[in-house]
């Protein structure tokens, strides 16, 4: 019923080469091979290794050929059908009107052979897992582009979207944002780009520890001298920064965000080119997030909040890393600015401080006992340091809090390590949740969560004045239903 007149297509045979080289199918055999290797043993040295390599490659080739042979896809007039499976056949049908986005990516090997991988996102609501995604791996670039344009062009155009004002089929392209290489200088201050090089360093240290002592040159004597430590830091810090910059460049190089008809198209990546397309009609707002280090240099990132988008954190990224001003401008294009935020009452500051100081005070108290009984003088010292550090943290957390509602949109902000401001259209709200603990009740505060069918599912105004809750919820949702909350 679905693919009347549409022949199932195959991916390019060249993909067999890619999958053989990356052991894509053979990777599943690893759990089987390890016990086999353990039984057979690697005792015979070189010969065994060569045999193993040949066998694995052969298996990989066979797996790649089989899965290429058994894989088919068809983009019919109403649905996309993907058939696959070596023994058990699986047929997945996704109606065209459930397709939320199409992503075309080209990892290095694919690029070498002129192939791309097409990810068709068909998420429904918030149940998102990888199951929601169809992957057509290894079609020629032209076929990938054809698939993308066809799938996105045939979505129902008459969707009721009062806030979308785009012309229906205008192929005009408008560039919203473009990468500047100097933005890479922000990378060393962004947590996510520092994690990878830090993890690499950690692995290196573990490796060195596992090596037999004789192999490791005795650079560090029994007592590491302060000079050596300082020298190490002087070398390591710039190296870490450099690694973060390189990492950011690999992911974000050539980033470009354009609006093409009813879609936002984001392209980025140095080795793997990633091409993400989001439907403007489904965008309900965006988040502006600034990490601790990013706030220092006034950098920020922007994510779009799109209904029914799987893996929203990766896909929704509109500005991966850039100056705050650029981020604010871009967010303003997604959703109307609701105006300045209202801060939260002083009682919220007390709560933030109590929480920030509690850990430090606890350590201090336990440490005093440890110091008197066990003589561990450093424990109370650490506790005092923690307590002192808690003060700016509590104040920072409090200053991040805010909420505001404009004529067509509203906004909530919170967070300290990563401060996140969510700006949403009023029509995005599918429910309100008001929470009040015993302590909040005594302090006259409440936490209000706007339930949204996009992004993380809910965005909270933490510890706002209880008296302001009915007014804010009424001002921030479309229609009159939120009036139910008014006392």
């Amino acid at each position, binding site marked *: 019923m679905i693919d009347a007149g549409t022949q199932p297509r195959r991916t390019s045979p060249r993909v067999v080469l890619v999958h053989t080289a990356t052991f894509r199918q053979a990777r599943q055999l690893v759990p089987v091979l390890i016990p086999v290797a353990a039984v057979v043993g690697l005792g015979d040295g070189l010969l065994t290794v060569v045999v193993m390599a040949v066998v694995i490659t052969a298996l990989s080739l066979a797996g790649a050929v089989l899965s290429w042979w058994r894989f088919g896809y068809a983009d019919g007039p109403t649905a996309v059908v993907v058939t696959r499976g070596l023994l058990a056949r699986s047929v997945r049908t996704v109606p065209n009107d459930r397709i939320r986005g199409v992503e075309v990516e080209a990892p290095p090997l694919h690029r070498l052979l002129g192939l791309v991988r097409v990810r068709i996102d068909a998420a429904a*609501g918030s149940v998102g897992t990888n199951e929601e995604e169809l992957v057509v791996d290894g079609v020629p670039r032209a076929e990938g582009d054809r698939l993308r344009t066809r799938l996105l062009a045939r979505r129902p155009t008459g969707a009721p979207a009062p806030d979308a004002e785009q012309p229906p089929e205008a192929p005009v392209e408008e560039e919203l944002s473009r990468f500047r290489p100097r933005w890479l200088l922000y990378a060393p201050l962004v947590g996510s780009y520092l994690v990878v090089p830090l993890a690499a360093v950690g692995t290196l240290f573990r490796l060195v520890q596992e090596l037999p002592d004789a192999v490791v040159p005795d650079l560090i004597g029994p007592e590491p001298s302060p000079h050596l430590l300082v020298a190490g830091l002087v070398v390591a810090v710039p190296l870490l920064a450099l690694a973060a910059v390189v990492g950011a460049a690999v992911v974000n190089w050539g980033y470009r965000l354009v609006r093409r008809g009813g879609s936002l198209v984001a392209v980025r990546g140095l080795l793997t080119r990633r091409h993400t397309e989001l439907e403007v009609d489904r965008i309900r707002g965006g988040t502006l997030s600034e990490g601790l280090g990013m706030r220092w240099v006034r950098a920020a990132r922007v994510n779009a909040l799109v209904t029914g988008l799987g893996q929203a954190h990766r896909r929704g990224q509109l500005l991966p890393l850039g100056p705050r001003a650029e981020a604010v401008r871009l967010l303003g294009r997604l959703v109307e600015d609701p105006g300045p935020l209202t801060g939260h009452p002083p009682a919220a500051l007390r709560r933030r401080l109590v929480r920030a100081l509690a850990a430090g005070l606890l350590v201090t108290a336990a440490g005093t006992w440890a110091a008197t009984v066990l003589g561990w003088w450093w424990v109370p010292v650490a506790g005092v340091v923690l307590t002192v550090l808690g003060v700016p943290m509590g104040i920072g957390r409090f200053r991040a809090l805010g909420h505001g509602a404009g004529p067509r949109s509203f906004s909530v902000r919170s967070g300290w390590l990563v401060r996140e401001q969510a700006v949403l259209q009023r029509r995005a709200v599918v*429910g309100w949740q008001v929470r009040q603990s015993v302590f909040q009740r005594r302090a*006259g505060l409440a936490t209000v969560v706007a339930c949204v*069918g996009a992004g993380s599912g809910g965005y909270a105004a933490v510890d706002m004045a209880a008296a302001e809750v009915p007014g804010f919820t009424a001002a921030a949702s479309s*229609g009159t239903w939120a009036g139910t909350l008014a*006392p």
Partner: protein
Amino acid sequence: MTADAPAPVRDPAWSLSRSAIGLWVTEGVIGALFWVVVVTAVLVFVPEGGLPSPLRWALVAFAVLEAAVTIGIRPWVRYRVHRWEVTGEAVYTLTGWLTRTWTLVPISRIQTVDVTRGVLQQLFGLATVAVLTASSQGTVRVLHLEADVAQRVADDLARRAELVRDEAT
């Protein structure tokens, strides 16, 4: 209901079935039995020297207190707090006992309505109505209604959601 400050929002109008108290007491008894078994096992099997006697007494006190709260206090507090209401435009609930949660979902954004009956609920002739939206956090659960009321509410909500549904996201 609250002595300290007025609630941030108004409370829904209707209370649950009184059988809910029986259900919560039963749940409390089951929970307390579990702790009694655990504490007894510790007292019997851990040798005298392994655990100082103040700790033993603390364990016993914990088990007694836990039973008193979950059987004697919590069901009644919960019954007084829990409320629900279906208005012309929305479904509205209040749940919790220490931390209170008010949830409001407009009927136009309802995606599915489920009625579930757990084993204990069946014993007391109760059922839960779950109203789901596009948001993972925007789920309203009306716990422990009489089974026939729950079914009527669910049918009514599903029918009205069909009539006024807009994009639902």
